């Protein structure tokens, strides 16, 4: 039993933000399942961009699968394909396994992997790899290695789909400040392409470039604006509260990165909770889905 990951002992670059949360793993899992529903709503119910043809796809990996929302949906839509949900987080994989057993998805298997080792798959195994939230998970320095490893296990001509959310501006003053802090936190965690952390951007726009560096073909991306405000949008507001400006996460990361303390930030986060209930609240972000194929000749 690996137990709870010792996040306090981990260097900043290995912190998994899903581990942060007063020991209430189920709350974080719910938030991730909720995020999946929101993303799916914005992508008009499509699990993949239409450019990805599934005709010859047999074996699929959902890398950093979290509670397995995407791979469970995919396995149900495609009972003839073989799906692997892969994550580095022991508690999450346990949770996903249990959830999948209720859904009795026989074509879906969950695997826990060690992020310090190569993926436990042979070269040229997968026809499709889906990687969601990778930019808030891996540091800028880790990406070349991640891309090399993902490419190794992809079949020639196999598709890679990187899906990430970037927060945009919001209307109210306290959340505006918290998003500024978040930008600095992400920069200090090396999960930002804004070196000085001017804004909370995680480098999702680098997806196509990361693929072209490895000579991928058929590279492209799709943008899906995500509305998080408005009077009739409880889903958007809840996503902000549970995932983007989640208080426990901000407190912990602010202290670890030296941006602020729980004491100084608590009043601000309380104010954010209040702002999220205001009728004139507005905020939005962008979901970016980039894709490409491993070259045939490598």
């Amino acid at each position, binding site marked *: 039993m690996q137990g709870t990951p010792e996040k306090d002992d981990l260097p900043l670059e290995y912190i998994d933000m899903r581990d942060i949360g007063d020991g209430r793993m189920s709350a974080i899992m719910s938030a991730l399942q909720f995020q999946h529903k929101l993303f799916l709503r914005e992508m008009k119910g499509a699990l993949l961009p239409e450019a990805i043809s599934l005709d010859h796809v047999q074996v699929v990996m959902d890398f950093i699968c979290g509670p397995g929302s995407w791979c469970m949906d995919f396995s149900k839509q495609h009972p003839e394909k073989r799906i692997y949900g892969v994550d580095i987080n022991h508690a999450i994989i346990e949770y996903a396994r249990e959830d999948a057993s209720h859904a009795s998805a026989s074509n879906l298997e969950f695997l826990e992997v060690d992020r310090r080792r190569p993926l436990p798959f042979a070269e040229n195994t997968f026809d499709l790899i889906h990687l969601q939230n990778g930019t808030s998970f891996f540091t800028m320095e880790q990406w070349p290695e991640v891309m090399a490893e993902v490419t190794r296990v992809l079949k020639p001509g196999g598709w890679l789909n990187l899906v990430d959310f*970037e927060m*945009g*501006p*919001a*209307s109210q*003053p306290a959340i*505006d*400040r918290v*998003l*500024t802090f978040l*930008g600095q936190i992400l920069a200090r965690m090396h999960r930002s*392409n*804004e*070196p*000085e952390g*001017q*804004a909370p*951007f995680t480098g*999702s*726009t*680098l*997806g*196509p*470039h990361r*693929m*072209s560096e490895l000579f991928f073909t058929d*590279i*492209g*991306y799709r*943008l*899906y*604006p*995500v*509305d998080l*405000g*408005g009077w009739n949008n409880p889903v958007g507001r809840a996503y902000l509260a549970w995932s983007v400006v989640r208080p426990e996460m901000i407190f912990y990361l602010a202290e670890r990165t030296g941006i602020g303390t729980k004491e100084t930030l608590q009043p601000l986060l309380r104010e954010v909770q209040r702002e999220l209930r205001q*009728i*004139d*609240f*507005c*905020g*939005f972000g*962008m979901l*970016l889905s*980039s894709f490409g194929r491993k070259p045939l000749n490598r």
Partner: protein
Amino acid sequence: MDHNGNNSPEYWQETAASEVARVFFGHPYMMEALGSLLPSMIDLRKAQKVLDVGCGNGEWARRVAKAYPHLHVIGIDTSLHLIQEAVSRATSEKVDSLSFYQFGTAQALDFPSESFDVVHVHSLASFISTVMWSRILDEMIRLLKIGGWLNIVDYEHGTTSSAAFNKLAAMGMAGVRALGGSLAPSSPTRGAAARLYGFLVDAGLIDVSYTVHALDYGINSHPGTRAFLDDFVVDMQNFKPFILQLGLLDGETFDALLAQTKSDFYLPDSCGYAYLISAVGRKEP
């Protein structure tokens, strides 16, 4: 402070930068990113008069007039040369249901109350000071007929795969903030786009809603992207004096960043976006 009402803060800010901005925001690519000239709840078939405030070279007004020939569309702008350009384009395209007027920066909107079915304004944040928002909104609402629609479109920078462009954009935002042009207390945003919805609610309009659109900078994303980026990099050059004047960058660094941006934007794997927000509300009976 001058207590003479006529010398109170000017309604409109007219600088070289704001003029460039109005042309930038009137780019056909922006109109395409919005998907339609106006949000779907505005029915122009029964409308008679439409006003475009800060119309720039008249791109939007011309499109509306062509699509709905029964309308009388009026565009106003503080820049004489943009108005001249708007007039000459309308003349050469033989659109005669259009009128354009220049008006002064210290001027309220010189039209009778309740005279328009739709008042449209794009990128208001780039040509008014932050303190003038509520006054100008009230003024535009005054011009609306009962039940008429106010439609406001604004822009907020997102992010791109070009580190050089992101740096230039951050400097541009620092400049806007230094000049008091940001509505956000701390984030590097103009702040207007996210606040439009609240402004319209606070102004007492009804049926207020908004839509978020992506302005895609990826060279291969759409057929029109390349032409847009061609104009965009020229526009960025026009912001150089503004950035230099504020001491945010020296000329050499600016030139190097712009050259790098130009080369980054035309790479096949370039990726980036901005946001366009279209907020709409109706004058209560």
